């Protein structure tokens, strides 16, 4: 529970020079289990400013959800070892007492979960669950205030006849309505930070688009910072200002969405892009999945944790990939672009080897041996318009 930065935990430190609403620094989360220590998140740093959206992508088990649950202090302290620093509006979250954490949760920082059917209590009416979230941070509010607020929020997220639906149980809602209710619950106390953990998984595509539009509208209205956790690059392309790519508990690439999707410099990101079906491409073309499986976090590979699955290992001299963990170093795409890879000239490999495979029409034209300087206006190779 140590905080290795010297930042005070006082609220008055809010919006100090250049500090974003959420600052996560050197976050490490470990779970001691009977089989050993699970290194769920290792040395992770990121931040989001008000009005901005950060997308976190990665496979299952890459630490996406674990790190964001740490932001709300939702891990059981007896079963978790957390190090590093998480500051919401200047306030340090790590090491905060349960009662202080409770004042943040659902209030200034809220979370909406995937699978709204499982995440809403099946035995309580939707309105009751919403007003409970309101009442938790408005102790003086009466039951009628809570109900009125619940109806107002259901109306805001586009539930028809909210004054009647407020008395429904979650199972009486459709999948899209449940997810809207989840969002309404997340937003009921006007949080400045909203973490959406796969908010559109298990919804059909039209409903997905509605939910994403809704999140965007609400963000403009409340000027909240949003973190979207997803494995859908289409969602990232549509929603996120910045992207954090995670692999085996570490950040492997981090940067502005547009730059990162057009000029990724880390083979894992290439792999993610290759795995996205291209609607304009030949329907018989095979998808190019990343070979192998995500590594065990109990016993992660030595060196770069992606090296056992990386097809470009032979381009790195010696056995650097399997012996030394690459540092997160500035990439070639301007300030804020970070990558964790030993490859010397990733841009050239991407342009000559990866791009022709995943988007041949783009590779032929503009993107011949791209130097590390910015090449403007290359559209993302895949689903920019999700």
């Amino acid at each position: 529970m140590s905080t290795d930065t010297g930042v005070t935990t006082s609220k008055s430190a809010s919006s100090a020079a250049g500090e974003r609403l959420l600052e996560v620094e050197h976050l490490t989360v470990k779970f001691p289990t009977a089989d050993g220590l699970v290194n769920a998140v290792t040395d992770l740093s990121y931040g989001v400013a008000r009005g901005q959206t950060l997308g976190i992508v990665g496979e299952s088990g890459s630490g996406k959800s674990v790190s964001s649950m740490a932001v709300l202090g939702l891990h059981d302290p007896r079963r978790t070892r957390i190090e590093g620093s998480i500051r919401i509006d200047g306030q340090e979250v790590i090491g905060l007492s349960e009662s202080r954490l409770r004042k943040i949760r659902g209030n200034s920082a809220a979370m909406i979960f995937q699978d709204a059917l499982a995440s809403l209590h099946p035995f309580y009416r939707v309105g009751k669950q919403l007003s409970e979230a309101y009442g938790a941070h408005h102790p003086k509010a009466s039951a009628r205030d809570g109900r009125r607020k619940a109806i107002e929020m259901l109306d805001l997220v586009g539930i028809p006849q909210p004054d009647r639906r407020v008395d429904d149980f979650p199972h009486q809602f459709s999948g899209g309505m449940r997810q809207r209710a989840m969002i309404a619950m997340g937003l009921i106390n006007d949080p400045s930070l909203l973490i959406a953990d796969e908010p559109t998984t298990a919804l059909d595509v039209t409903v997905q688009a509605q939910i994403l539009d809704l999140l965007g509208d609400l963000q403009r209205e409340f000027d909240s910072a949003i973190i979207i956790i997803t494995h859908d690059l289409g969602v990232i392309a549509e929603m996120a200002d910045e992207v954090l790519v995670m692999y085996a508990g570490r950040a492997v690439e981090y940067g502005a969405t547009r730059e990162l999707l057009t000029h990724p410099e880390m083979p894992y990101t290439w792999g993610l892009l290759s795995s996205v079906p291209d609607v304009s491409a030949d329907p018989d073309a095979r998808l190019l999945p990343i070979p192998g499986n995500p590594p065990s976090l109990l016993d992660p590979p030595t060196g770069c944790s992606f090296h056992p699955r990386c097809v470009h290992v032979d381009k790195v001299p010696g056995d650097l990939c399997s012996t030394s963990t690459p540092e997160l170093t500035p990439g070639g795409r301007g300030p804020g672009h970070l990558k964790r890879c030993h490859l010397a000239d990733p841009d050239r490999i991407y342009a000559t080897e990866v791009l022709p495979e995943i988007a041949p029409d783009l590779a032929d034209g503009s993107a011949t041996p791209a130097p590390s300087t910015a090449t403007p206006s290359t559209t993302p190779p895949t689903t920019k318009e999700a």
Partner: protein
Amino acid sequence: MFAFIVKRLLAGLLVLGTLVVSIFVLFWYGPRSPVQGLCEQRTNNRCTSEFRAQLEENFGYNNPMLSELGKYVGGIFTGRDIQLGASTFVECSAPCLGLSYRTFVPAFDELIRRLPATISLAVGAAVIILLVGVTSGVLAARRRGTVADKALVSATLLMSSIPYVLFALLIYLYLNVINEVFPEAGYTPLTENPVAWLSGLLLPWLALGLYNSTQYTRFSRGAMIDALSEDYIRTARAKGLSSRTVTFKHGLRSALVPIVTIFGIDFAFLLAGTIFTEIIFGINGIGRWGLEAIQIEDFPVVQTTVLFGAIVVIVANIVVDILYGVLDPRVRIS
């Protein structure tokens, strides 16, 4: 909901009807004469075949089986007079379940007389079972994996592995006979003397309640751990609710569904007769009555206690089904 209850009640009546007929037929065609026990009792174990034949004649066992079954079933609805000797009749009003072969008192009247003792015992024990069992189970679930949790679970396993007869006997001996820590066990009707009712039942309640609460500790612990690992618990925590609200309002509410299921059946068994407790602590309840009836082959009493047990189990099941709907809106029938 109403149609559902009616349907369940009709199904229950069908079960009862089958039971009435099959027990009657079993005794009628059984390997021993249904009045053998009565005959031995009357003659101090020197039952002669003449006397037995006379008893069989008196109780109608020489008539066709169906006509006697008809009389028995008819008596349940309308009552009947039962002939004992040449000119002795006993009036057995509806619902007549026959006369006890030992006392010649209508079995139903005796059942009603003994019912308060058994209900008092069962309800008190049930309160202890639920309070102690569920509370300790919830506490253990909240501290799962800790030394306190493991100690509690081990203690309940240890207690469950002692046979109940031994447990109840030891409690009676040590807390009532050798050391008079508790007031003397026994049953006084509540309406007669509430203080005596309470003090007499205190020790039986504790013995029955504590022993049976151990399985509820483990069961509620498991149900709570399941409930607390649900996604909606994480949601509740993420809303900023207090740990107590999360545990009890969101967790226990879900865990109650499986607890209610087994409690319904267990409570039915408590009501149908707690034989050992009644015998050890000297309470004249239904369990003890049924056991004695089996020993002396008192067929009408055996029939009555079996029917009573069946009714209690059927009603408990219906109540549990209704409670499901109260607890879980998804199974509510509109």
